[in-house]
């Protein structure tokens, strides 16, 4: 197992992987929406699936499943578990 930092953006994770949210680098509007949907620093996030043709991601936080586009997911930094 690697010991160095495993920080990545959310869009790079593949289906089935889990991570902890480290930072959310989006504009205020999206940030507010993500907070309300349960995206908070330290929360556990799981990639359920990714759509074909660079389509959106389906992620799970707590009991909520959320769709978001890859360019938006790229602004969320996570630590892979």
């Amino acid at each position: 197992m690697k010991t160095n930092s495993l920080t990545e953006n959310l869009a790079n994770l593949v289906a089935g992987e889990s991570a902890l949210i480290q930072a959310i680098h989006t504009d205020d509007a999206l940030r507010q929406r993500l907070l309300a949907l349960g995206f908070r620093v330290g929360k556990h996030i799981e990639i359920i699936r990714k759509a074909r043709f660079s389509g959106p991601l389906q992620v799970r936080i707590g009991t909520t499943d959320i769709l978001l586009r890859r360019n938006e997911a790229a602004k969320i930094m996570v630590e892979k578990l």
Partner: protein
Amino acid sequence: MKRVALLGMPNTGKSTLFNRMTGGSARVGNWPGITVELLSSKILLGGDMVEIIDLPGIYDIHGFSEDEQVVRHFLHDNVPDLAIIILNATQIERQLSLLLQLRQYNLNMVVLLNMADEAKKFGISIDTAKMSASLGIPIFLLSAKYGNGYQEALQSVTKALRYSTPGMAEELRSQLEQDAHIESEMTRVLQNSVQVPMRLPDNLTTHLDHIMLHPWLGLPIFFGIMYLLFQGIFILGQPLQTGIGDLFSWLREAALTPLLSGLPAILQGLLLDGIYNGVATVAAFVPIIILFFLFMAIVEDTGYLSRAAFLMDALMAKLGLDGRSFVMLLMGFGCNVPALMGTRVMRSRSLRLLSMLVIPFSLCSARLQVFIFITAALFAPKSAALVVFSLYLFSFAAAILTALIFKRYFPNSEPFVLELPPYRFPTIRQMLLRGWHEVYHFVHRASKFIIIGVVFVWLLTHFPATATPAGPDTWAGQIGSWLHPLFKPIGITAELTIALIFGFVAKEIVIGSLAVIYGLSGHALSGALALQLDWVQAYSFMLFTLIYTPCLSTIATLQSESKNTGFTLLSLIWSLAFAWVVSFVFYQSARVLGY
């Protein structure tokens, strides 16, 4: 009268509860401080009439979306006597934040934890007594869909209404940021009253999504479902539409014509061919709209619409649209009017407007009738199917091109972050209510405009009174010959130009109008058209018919849904100009190539 506001996040069953409380008797209305209309209803509660208002679902009271602004402005200018906060019990751990935000406004509140049945299945247990004590607000578990817990909740609402919101202090009303301590407050409340299992049990939704969102099978299944819906609306709707048409003609022949026979011919024409036909036009849409929204309610309430968005988003994002726009675009191939109304599921206004600009290019069933008649008249049976298929391709291409051209003028401010709700069974009651609401809305909003339009075209094609109806001497004929220099370069004759003026009202009457114009019908009309036109002219006419304004009802719906005359005009002018350019390019190229 006391005012009760329903507040909550999207997907909490807020509207289901609203329907249950009001029995579906709601109407749309305007409120001070906001520009959008809200559903509200007056009901008897504990001996008093109260007004219940269904506010848009919001994630965050301080959020930036249009709906969030609407709710803020509503609460600021119309302080409710009681706010019923509806939270999804299965997502209580994050939805609590909205409740805590709202609590800061000192509103008189009752909290209903909806979808209690689902939460139980997930293994989530909520101690409402403890939670109520730690928040100081009455809290009830409820299943709005099945009615469990509804009576208790209603009693507590009645009780809470005895006290009113004390009136918001101005500093409270204007305060915006006080969220810092909400996180710790959430933890405190959740800690001793809610238990959520670490991992959700694999349930039906997980299994269904394995198939429905499968990397290879997902899209074929999606198109299969769309095809079934489309066929369902078509197969069930067509006879209903014909039936209503027959009923109206029967009523006209049996009752109205004899009744009005004493009146001068002109007045008879105005009443029967103008106003009565206008009413019949509106009525013909009623079965299609009901069916459409019955099926849409299934797609939406089961949670499949969000899945469609997931599957189609990769392509639609490039067009500035999203997967839901694509569903409406496809449904537009049945009928544009309900598809335009269906865009209401998109909460971002610019996304909605762009979708509404694109939908009228969907080749609807009324246009198909025209194309089938013309291709049968002018093309060999072998190539007829190919011709109709090519028009479908043009329809898609027109929609895509329009989206690409206009997407920069309708920048989508709302981030594409959607909840994927679990699959749920829709209730029949909910589906019927939806169909009824939409028909009411359409008749209420669009009928005046449609009737005036039909009367107007009747006037154009029947005056001056000395001219033969729809002939070259009528006003329509004069407009036709006046427009002729414009239509000549695209191969459209003066007779066809008059038919296009009729087609502005509805594509269903284009062939009928040609029959009047030529004084021929059926095979005789096909023969006359085949003699007068060559295939290049006919194809150019069909391209123009495909792309220009679908019908008066579509314009009426564009106007009533966008509430923006500039936008309606843009759609009108763009489709006319686009139709002309496409027909021009086709006709002139074909001629240059020697056809």
